[in-house]
Structure formats: C-alpha cells, structure tokens
C-alpha cells in the first residue's frame, strides 16, 4: 500500500513537473535556433514522388527587428541565377532578372510554398526568425533517454495544422523530427534534421528533410554555409537593392 502511494505521488509529481517544462523546452529550443540575423547558403533538392529531382541553390540573409526582413538570392541553376525575393513583414517583392523588373507578390503567397519546396513560408520562418513558442502551446507527452516529445497546438486555426508532434534533442535543444497534422488529424508532413554541427558556438542542423506524406514528394535542404553574425547592411532589404541583381 505504501509503495503504491509513493508510486502515485511520483506520477503526480512527474506529470506536474512535465506540464511546466513543456513551455521551458520550447523556449530553450527557440533560444537555440533564433538569432538576430543570419546568412545561409542552402542547397534545395526537390524530389517528386516519381523520383525526379530538381536542385537549386540560394543565399539568404535575414534580420529580426520590429519587422522581420529577409532577402533571398538564387545562385543556381544558371537560368534562375540572380532571381531575388525580398520579404519585409507581410510584404513580398520578386525580382526576375530576365524581365529586369521588381514585382510585388500577393500577401497570401506567404501561405504558399517556400521557393516551390515542400516547406511553406511559415514552416520556414518558425525555424529561423519567429520560433515556435509564439505560435503554439506545447505539451510534454513524454521524456525519452535522448529526447523530449512535445505536442504543439497552434494558437490560431490559420496556421493550417491541427497540431505538431516535435521530438526535441535533450542535449542540443534542436528539433530532431516534427510531424505536421492536418485539421482532420491526419499526418501530412514530416521534417527530420541531421548532420548537427557547432557554428559560432551554436548547435545547428546541417541538413533538413521535409517529406510530404500525402504527395510522396520530398525536399532536402543542405546548409552549405551558416553565419550567425553576418555583415548585414540594412539597405539590403530594399527593392532598390533587390533590383541590383547579384
């Protein structure tokens, strides 16, 4: 009887402890991943369900502030090299070098795919600038030897997901795997991370794979260069700079 009581007490303690730590884990995760500004060179490989591939390289500068700003420049393949995308808050502009003009893109494009990959802009932003704590309430489902398993419920229905299941590395506080569930509760996408490395003292994943379970397609993102203390000039986030091309 006594033993049972102790066990019961432990369970209560454990559950109350974990309820508190869901938020903590997410906060630490955001802290690890967010940075004031960064520069990334990334190779994006899109693999269709049939196994056809398309590879593109982009260079991306981002800066956080009152409004988040981001500049993306395509490096390869040759036919899209120089294409640029500027995002300031909710506004987006595109520069097509072959057309020689900057065009504004509709606001709802943010809901769409990030550069034609299996990631949406919002998926992408959560990873870099906005973090997860701002948009989700976490719940610790269980603690494993090397990781925590969190269930994230979005604050807003606009996010388009019912919930996320995130496996967080206990050592580095980076997501190892995120499962995205549609409003009807079915699994739609799975993100896995790998090739962890230390960059400027911060742990970061060198490779991300997003799998669209429904379509069967896959996007592999490889970080060719990551810089958390880049030399960024605020002028870079202007349409004039965008129009300058490379």
């Amino acid at each position, binding site marked *: 009887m006594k033993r049972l009581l102790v066990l019961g007490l432990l369970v209560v303690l454990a559950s109350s402890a974990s309820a508190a730590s869901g938020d903590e884990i997410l906060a630490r995760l955001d802290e690890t991943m967010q940075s004031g500004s960064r520069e990334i060179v990334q190779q994006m490989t899109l693999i269709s369900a*049939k196994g056809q591939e398309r590879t593109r390289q982009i260079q991306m500068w981002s800066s956080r502030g009152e409004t988040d700003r981001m500049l993306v420049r395509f490096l390869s393949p040759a036919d899209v090299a120089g*294409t640029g995308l500027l995002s300031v808050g909710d506004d987006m502009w595109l520069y*097509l070098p072959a057309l020689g003009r900057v065009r504004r*893109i*509709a606001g709802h494009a943010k809901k769409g795919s990030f*550069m*034609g990959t299996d990631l949406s802009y919002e998926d992408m932003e959560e990873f870099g600038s906005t973090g997860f704590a701002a948009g989700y309430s976490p719940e610790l489902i269980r603690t494993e030897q090397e990781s925590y398993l969190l269930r994230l419920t979005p604050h807003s229905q606009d996010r388009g997901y019912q919930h996320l299941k995130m496996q967080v590395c206990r050592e580095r506080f980076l997501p190892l795997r995120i499962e995205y569930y549609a409003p009807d509760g079915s699994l739609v996408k799975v993100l896995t991370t790998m090739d962890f490395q230390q960059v400027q003292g911060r742990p970061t994943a060198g490779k991300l794979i997003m799998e669209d379970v429904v379509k069967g*397609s896959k996007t592999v993102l490889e970080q060719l260069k990551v810089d958390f203390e880049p030399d960024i000039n605020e002028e870079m986030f202007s349409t004039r700079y965008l129009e300058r091309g490379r």
Partner: protein
Amino acid sequence: MLALSRFIQRRPLAILIIILSLTIFFALNARKVTMTTDVRDFFPGDHPEVKAYDEIADTFGGTEYIMVATEGEDVFQKESLELIQSLTERFESIPGVDRVRSLTNVEEVKGTAWGIELSSLLEELPRDEEEAARFRSRVLQDDFYAGSVVSGDGKLSLLALELDPQANAVEVADGVLGAINEERVYATGTPVLNSLLAKSMKEDLIRLIPLVVLLIALVLYLYFHNLWGVLLPFLTVIISTIWTMGSMGLSGRQMTPLNSVMPVILITLGNAYGIHILSRFYDEASREDPGKAIENTLVSVGTAVLMAGTTTIAGFLSNSTSTIVQMREFGFFTGFGILIALGISLIFIPAVLLYVKVPNRDASRESGVFRNILLRMAQLTVAAPGRVIIVMLLAAGIFTLGVPLLTTNSNLFNFFDHDTQPRIAYELVKSSFSGSESLELVIEGDILEPEVLRSIESLQDELEATGLTGKPISIVDVLKRVNMALNDGDPAHKEIPASRELAAQYLLLLEMSDPDFLTRFITVDYSQARIQAMVKDTSPEGLASLFDQVDALTKEHGGNVTTTGMVKLLDALAAMIIRGQISSLTLSLIAVFLLVRWLTNSWEGSLLSTLLITLSTAATFGFMGWTGVALDMVTVLISSIGIGVGVDYSVHVYSGYQEARKKGKEPADAIIAAICQRGKAIICNAAAVIGGFLIFLFSSFPPLRYFGSLVSFTMFFAALFSLTLLPALIMARAKRSMVG
C-alpha cells in the same frame, strides 16, 4: 457410364445430401461477389498501354475525369453561380476527387497593377447584375475559359473533376452522382458510365432472369407435361449457378458487365443435359423399374450428354487464352458452371429419380404433328441430300459474305440508348464543350528551351487543326499567360517567353504561388511536359482517325512523344477483342474437333460437326457484318457460346446415327432414326436456348440485346444444320461409297 449408374444406385441419399450441403456452402460464399466495371480491369497488369497510362497518372496526376454540366438560361446569374460553387465544394469533399475545375474556382494568372498572382477566376460572387455582366464578358472573351468551363453561349457550365489515380473510380462516381440532387445537372465521363452500367446492368438482370426462367419452364412443361420434368432441369441450373457464383466469391472475383450474363447462360444452357437424361429415362421407365431405367438411360444417352457437355466447356475454356482478363475469367467460370450442370445432370438427377414416382407417359407425345414433320424432313434429306446441301450452304454463304464488314467497338457510350440520361449528358458535353475523355501527349526533352516550347505549341496547333479535339492545353499556354500578365496584361505579349531564363523564372514565380498548379503540366525536373486535349469523337472510327493523325503529327515533330489516355486504352481494347476472338475461335474449334473425335471415335463425326459449327459461326459473324452490329465486350462472347453449344446438336444427331448403325440399320434408315429420335430433344433444347437468349431483347442495353439475338441466330443455324445439312452430308457420303 455403367459404373456411374451402379454408384448412384448404391448411395443415392448420400449423393443428395452432399450436393445439397455443398450448394448451401457455395450460396453463402456467392454473397461475397461484387461488381466492377473499371476498364483497366480488362487488361493484364503488364499491358504496355496500361503501363503508359499509369505512368502519366503517376507523373502528372489523374487523367480520368468526371464531367458535370449545369444547364440554365445564363450560368452567370447569381443562382447559377451559387449552384456551381456549391457543387464545386460538394465534389471537392468527395474522397478520391483530386481537383475540381469549375467556373467558380478555376485558377487565373492575374496580372495586376502591382504584380502577379495565381488565384481563382471568381473570388467573390457578383453582387449585382452589373458585376455579373462584367464577369460574363470577361470569361466569354477568354478562350482559356470559353469552351472549357463554360460554353460559348453561356448557357452551360462544366465542372471537370480530376480523380485520384489510386481511387476506385466507380466508387467516386457513385459519390458524385449521390451529391447531385438538382435538376438540369448532368454527370458523364467513363467512371460515371461505369457506375451507371454496373447499377443498371444489375437491375436489368434482376428483371430479365425471372423472364428467362419462366420461358424455359414453359418450354420444359410443353415437352414433359409434368412437374418433375420442369423441376429437375431447373434444380440443375440453379445449383450450378450457385456453385459458380460461390466459387467466384471464394476466389475473390468480381462480376463484370461481361460475366453478368453468365447466370442467364447457365440457366439457358445448363438444362439441356437434364432434358436429354429425363427424356430417355421416361422412355425407359415406362418399360423397366427405376434402377434399370437409370442404368439404360445413362448407358444410352450418358455418353452423348457427356460429349455435349465437354464440348460446351471446351468452347468456354477456349477464352482462357484471351489477353483480356475478364474474358479469361468469364470463360473459366462459365466453363466451370457448365461442368457442374453436367455433373448434376449425370449424378443428381438420376439419384432423385430413384425416389420419384414416374408418371405414365403421355401417349400423345409419341405420335403427333411434330414427329411427322421430323419424319418428313428426314425422308427428304435421305432422298435428295444434294439439294439439301446446296440450299443450306447457300443460306450460310450469303450470310458469311458479310464477315469483312464486321466492326469492333469498345466505346462504353454505346452501352446506353440515345434517350438515356448518361447518353444525353455525353452528347451535351460533346457538343458544347470538347468532350469528356482526354488524350494525353507527353513530350520529353529540355522543355524550357524556347525551341522546344515552340515545337510543343505547333504540335498543339496542328492537333487542334485536325478538328478532332478541343483546344489542347499545356505548359506553353501557362507560360504565355504569365508573359502577358507580367507585361501589363497586353495581349500582344501572349507569347512564348523569349529566353530559357525567362521561362525558368516564370515557373519559379508560379511555384512560389502554388507548387501543385504546375505538376499537371510539367515534371519537377522540367524534363517532361504534358499536352492534354479533350477528344470530341470517341467512336471507333473517330478514334482510329485521331490516332492516325496524332501518330503522323508526333512523327513529324520528332523527339520523344508518348500518347495515352482513357481513349487510347479503349482503342487498345478493341484490338485485343479481335485478336482474342481469333485465337479463342481457333482453339475452340480444335478442341471441339479433338473431343468429338475422341468421344464418337469417328473422324467423319468430328469433321462434320466441326464443319457445321464453323459454318454457323461464320454465318453469325457475317450477319453482324451485314447488320452493322459491332463486336464489343459483350457480343464478343457469341462465338465461344456458339461453338461450344452449337456443336452439341450435331453430336447428338451423329451419335444417334452411330447408335442406329450399330444396331445394324442401313445408313438411310439410321439417319431417319437419328433425326426422329434426337430431333425432338434438339428442337426442344434449341427452343429453350433461343427463347432464353431472346429475352435479352428486353434489356435496356443495346449490346445485351445484340448479344441475345446473335446467340439465338447461331443456335438456330446450328440446330437447323444438324437436322438437315449433317444428315444430308452423311447420306451423300454413304451414297458415294455405295456407288464406289
């Protein structure tokens, strides 16, 4: 046969119990059988056309469509638009519907003052008349929409539902049909037709089978004049039908339009063996005790019945060489059913007869007009065999001349009469829009190169110029529209991007807006593009001419172009029908020849029987040629039925002749005896079979009607030839050998 008779007499009760309990077992399994009408099920999985079709579906998404048309005075009216919007939403929620393209949700590449976006053509329903009018003129002036989501006169709108290639198209069609509860909304397309076909075919059979049963019962009663004479042949066919359906259920097979006629075939054909057994048994039982009567019956007609049965089974089994999966299954299971009917007739009926009190024979049966006619016929044949031969060959010859006129058709639309709902919808979509079936061309190459794009464009133009398809759509049209949109909507810029870079950057732009939008036009590695065109005329001639021209066009363009689409599958099916027909025909003739040779132990008998049935079959095909009835999935069955069943009559007459000769009769007398003895059972059976198949004339499906009259035609000729041409030939030969 003697051994069989002894066995039956030793254990009649055990036989009855075993057969009845097996019947219950099969009946329980028969309930598992479901119905399929998917055209792809007709092909073996590794068929090249199916592979090409599946390949495209995998790469670009569905190529199978359900088309729903709404009709009204003006589809731009608020109510009409609301209806279209509501239908669009309803259809989108049906599992298995990948995409719906309608007036209210079709994507538009919008070039606005400040940029470009990919969005719905209609973002909000027009609030007033003026807005509706503006929307109307905007849509009708654009050839991208006029003729595709809305008819040129604005009276019809079209919703194109693209199906998930993995989904069961018939189930999706059921869902779509169930979601429509408004008037003047019509659904068509292969999946809808398949669904309706499955449903109405079932209803048709439920309606027709009782009629067949009634008619055959009547024939049997007229022949036997007693209840057991009706009941026993009937029990035979019912048991065999149950066993067959049960084994289909056990092996997980499905009913198809093809083998849905199987129950009727079993009911009409399966009773023949019982008729011959009973007919002889009554003869014998008037003289002997039941045990002895059964022994005599089985010894005298048992072999002939066995022979007739095995040739029929061989006829059906000959379909197992067909490349068409459903033909194989139909052949196999019908053969199996006949085998059961045969076994039941030889084992079950005698066992029952041991327990039945035999009524005294009706003396009037033996005399009468009928017998006199047969006798007269026999005498005529014996007296002037040459004349009979010439008359019969002439009749057969005239019909046979029609064989070269024979056509094939695998167009499902022909399964419906002109005034039926699916046909009306089909014609509506065909006349106001391009059509409901798509032709798919896949071009391989470095698609973004302006040169390749221009080649695709000219291929599209030439395809449209044939007049056989609607406006073809491809990535070229998308790029042209983006080019225009980014040049301030100036129609002068509705042209192919001048450079590879521009094309690549446009695609990048579109991908950012909606990556799925492009997947149906181009692969992610930009190595394959798809041209899609709706086919206007899906008749066999229309398709043949279309494929000829498409082949010529793609050859001209060089490069790597693959053609597919549901229409291509249907076309391939027609070719397979012909090829399958020739091989199963040859095979069944060889099988029948060998079987009859083995069973009658006579080259003369087997040669003559085979010759006769060849003539009847040729006459039937010729008849189809003359009357313009096409070979399709259902009418294609006639030859195997014709050969397997038709040969039975010759076999009976010949074995009657052999029996009489063995008793020492001269050829002329033996022929007369054979005709008189066997003639009545043959005519009774032919009447039952012909009557049974003629019931199909009441079917609501043209192919079933044709099928019924064609089988009747073959049976008529087979019976006629067996009672006239066969004896005449035997007589002519006997005369010659006497002279010689």
